[in-house]
């Protein structure tokens, strides 16, 4: 389907989340695709790259979820931040609780796209598109967030560590709707970093982006979350790097050991935005920067 085919599509809204799950399930059972459209910042652009639709090609149904109340809203209760899948990045960066208790998430949302994209883009959309270059998903990786999904079979939570299985592949079933993300809030004042390396500050897809959140106790990091965009087929969670940092006092972490751990955690490629070698260099540099902020001699 090309852009010219867009008017051929049907679009509807669902009366409720349950009704939406029903539509998706019924169509999936018949082998028909359903597109859940939120901000359209990926999907609409993708249509431009596709060849015109043949008469015999299946026509996906588009369901507009951008205004669905059950997928929106940002709430915090008992240390758990819940962000609706269709809440926009603009809503995220302006939300007082996010600014106060999840400042890294607010910083990420502020640097994602430009305001026009922030006003439309959503975490749910980035999770569904499942690009390893998505800034928002890197932030969720660092928070070790849970993804709340729902289908006619019920609701479940997918831990971030169990979400991604390969390039744009995930453990979410085709009939599961992304409802929200949940973040267990770190203690107030926890050190964090959002560092995006791109061509310019706005409207740049990251060459490398690092999301970091740490809990420190004297000379040790006792909890560490890391997420890195654009350095592997999936959002990198930098498990070797996390293990290294947690295994010894900050003062005993060396730059060489840290660099080696980072390189073992990533598998960057050459593409239109950057090169494999530059991404390796930048990945090491941004992780060193975060650890230096935390007090490691790197």
């Amino acid at each position, binding site marked *: 389907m090309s852009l010219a085919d867009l008017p051929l599509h049907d679009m509807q809204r669902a009366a409720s989340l349950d009704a939406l799950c029903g539509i998706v399930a019924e169509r999936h059972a018949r082998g028909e695709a359903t597109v859940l459209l939120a901000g359209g910042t990926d999907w609409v652009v993708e249509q431009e790259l596709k060849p015109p639709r043949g008469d015999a090609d299946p026509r996906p149904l588009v369901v507009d979820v951008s205004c669905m109340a059950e997928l929106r809203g940002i709430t915090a209760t008992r240390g758990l931040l819940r962000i609706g899948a269709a809440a926009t990045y603009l809503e995220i960066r302006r939300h007082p609780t996010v600014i106060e208790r999840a400042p890294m998430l607010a910083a990420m949302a502020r640097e994602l796209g*430009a305001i026009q994209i922030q006003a439309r883009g959503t975490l749910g959309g980035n999770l569904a598109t499942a690009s390893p270059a998505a800034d928002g998903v890197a932030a969720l990786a660092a928070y070790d967030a849970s993804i709340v999904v729902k289908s006619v079979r019920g609701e479940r939570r997918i831990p971030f560590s169990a979400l991604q299985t390969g390039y744009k592949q995930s453990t979410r079933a085709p009939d599961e709707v992304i409802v929200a993300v949940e973040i267990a809030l770190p203690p107030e004042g926890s050190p964090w970093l959002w560092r995006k390396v791109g061509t310019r500050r*706005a409207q740049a897809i990251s060459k490398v982006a690092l999301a970091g959140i740490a809990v420190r106790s004297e000379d040790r990091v006792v909890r560490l979350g890391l997420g890195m965009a654009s350095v592997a087929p999936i959002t990198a969670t930098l498990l070797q790097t996390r293990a290294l940092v947690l295994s010894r006092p900050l003062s005993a972490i060396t730059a060489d050991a840290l660099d080696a751990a980072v390189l073992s955690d990533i598998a960057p490629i050459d593409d239109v935005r950057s090169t494999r070698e530059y991404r390796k260099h930048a990945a090491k540099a941004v992780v060193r920067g975060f650890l230096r902020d935390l007090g490691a001699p790197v």
Partner: protein
Amino acid sequence: MKITLTLNGLSREVDLPPLVRLLDALRGPLGLPGTKEGCGEGECGSCTVLLDGEPVNACLVSIGQCEGRAVTTVEGLSAPHLGPLARCFVDHGGAQCGICTPGMLISAEALLARRPDPSDEEIREAIAGNLCRCTGYQRIVDSIREAARERREAGGAA
């Protein structure tokens, strides 16, 4: 599909396939060609309009998604005459070839509605999604700063 939206303060109904881009609906059947198409893929900001008060790229919004919502285009800022914000762009050299100007005006309007006294950095952030190939941006920043000052002096009415 019949879609009812509030367009520049007036209730309008259009009957269009729901995935027609808001940009095409505005420039075609809705008769408002002030919104320009630049890149058509959400990069350049030429087609910026306000959707419920927030700036969005009209090339990425489907008309069906506008059901029940309020859209403001550049015509809504100035009709029937040049508004004070646009006048500042004229006076301070903020417009040259003009393709980016409607989008710049909308992004500036969205900023000034929230921040009556923005810093230059806030102005630059607000227009970071609007590409201009003529001015080098400084004159646009000057225009918006001046519009903010005039608006404050007029008690927010300008």
